């Protein structure tokens, strides 16, 4: 999966699940302060990302460190790469 694909899928989650306008979805956008995500949304964000990327991140400690969209892109890339490595 390319970085661009990760960005597109992640942004689609924010648009569809959280009704956030495309224009606000820049990599440095703070998901809590700029995009209005709250504690309930985080649960749904995890569910939506798991579904969209076919990963299991619910118990990943690193989820707690996510602040910006770029953090999500990086986190997903890391998880996907790890998954691909393990499959070889």
């Amino acid at each position, binding site marked *: 999966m390319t970085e661009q694909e990760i960005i597109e899928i992640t942004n689609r989650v924010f648009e569809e699940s959280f009704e956030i306008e495309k224009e606000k979805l820049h990599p440095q956008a703070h998901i809590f302060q700029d995009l*209005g995500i709250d504690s309930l*949304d985080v649960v*749904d964000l995890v*569910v939506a990302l798991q579904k969209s990327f076919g990963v299991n991140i619910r118990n990943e400690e690193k989820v707690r460190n996510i602040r910006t969209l770029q953090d999500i892109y990086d986190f997903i890339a890391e998880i996907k790469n790890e998954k691909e490595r393990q499959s070889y």
Partner: protein
Amino acid sequence: MQLKRVVITGIGVVSPLGNSVASFIDGLETGKSSVRFMEEWTHYNGMRSFVAAPAELKDEKKIPRQNRRTMGRMSIFAAQASEQAVADSGITPAEISSGRTGCIIGSTMGSAKSINDAFEIMLPERDLTRLSSSMFFQCMSHTATVNVAQYLGLTGYLMTSAAACASSLQAVGIAYDLIRLGRQDLFLCGGTEELHPTVTGSFDILFATSVKYNQAPQKTPRPFDKDRDGLVCGEGSGIMVLEEYEHAVRRNAKIYAEIAGYSTFGSGSHMSQSDKKSMIHCMSEALHSADIKPGQIDYINAHATGTPQGDKEEAEAIKEIFGASVPVSSLKGYIGHTLGASGAIELIASLIMMEKGIIYPTLNLKEIDPDCGGIAHITGPVRKEINTVLKNCFAFGGINASLVCRKNIY
């Protein structure tokens, strides 16, 4: 202790006839049935009744996402009806958040669709990880009350009545009692309900639904009619603002009516069958608490859903107390049985009948069943000065509720 007086100062409706009081009343005035064939239910094995009165879910995106995400269909209806009632009453956001305004919204249960969705997601693989955070808040029994309270910033007394088809009349009754006791100055109260095949199905398996009119939906339900064959489910929400009388007078509020009396009792006899004796008791106690005689009631808005047994018992109970002297009609033929919302929606219609001096007839009542005779059925619009109304709701579980309103306040 001197009990306070309680008046109704705001009303709001989402109904199968439209999502405002005006469109709802317009539908009643023009004798419109909102019942239709439910093609989408035909794949349910064992279902026999394919008729219902759906309301339209619209403008829900006007509710901010953070509020909307925890609302199932029925809570959205309740929020929209509540907004109408608040606007109609003219109460301010400061009053709503003063701690002196409470909220009681009744329903049979939480959102039927959300409950079904949650189990469909969870059960096939016993997997909890795909459930959204808001699912539980849509499913829980007090979902409508708390969603409305959070949406409006309402900080007073919050509770939910869950008495199936008597839920919303109980909500109004409890709010009435709490204002009388001086615990709150204002209440947003009423009920809400949503259509779902599992809801109609629960009546269908008990042989309580209408099954003969699937090809002629607008001819059913037929309260008190000799060809009635069961109830038809509807959906929507009716919300009222109840207010302590002096409080309403101080702010020069429009007063629709005073709540003069209320009672609720159990039948103690059968889970699903209505019984005349307990209905008589309930209506008599409501009259007693209002300190009025049967002859002083100008109109009875019946529960009558179109079931053979329920309509007969109610008609006999009314006959026993009122004879044929008080006009009676049921509104189920227009909007189906809106279950937990029916008491409030139909009480709101009764308030408008009072205001306009007109009685809307029982739709589809073409030939009065001899079993339901001896009372003053209204089969066409009647002009009449209406000062006092009795509203009945009789629910599964043997829960009865009756409420008396009067227009002229002295």
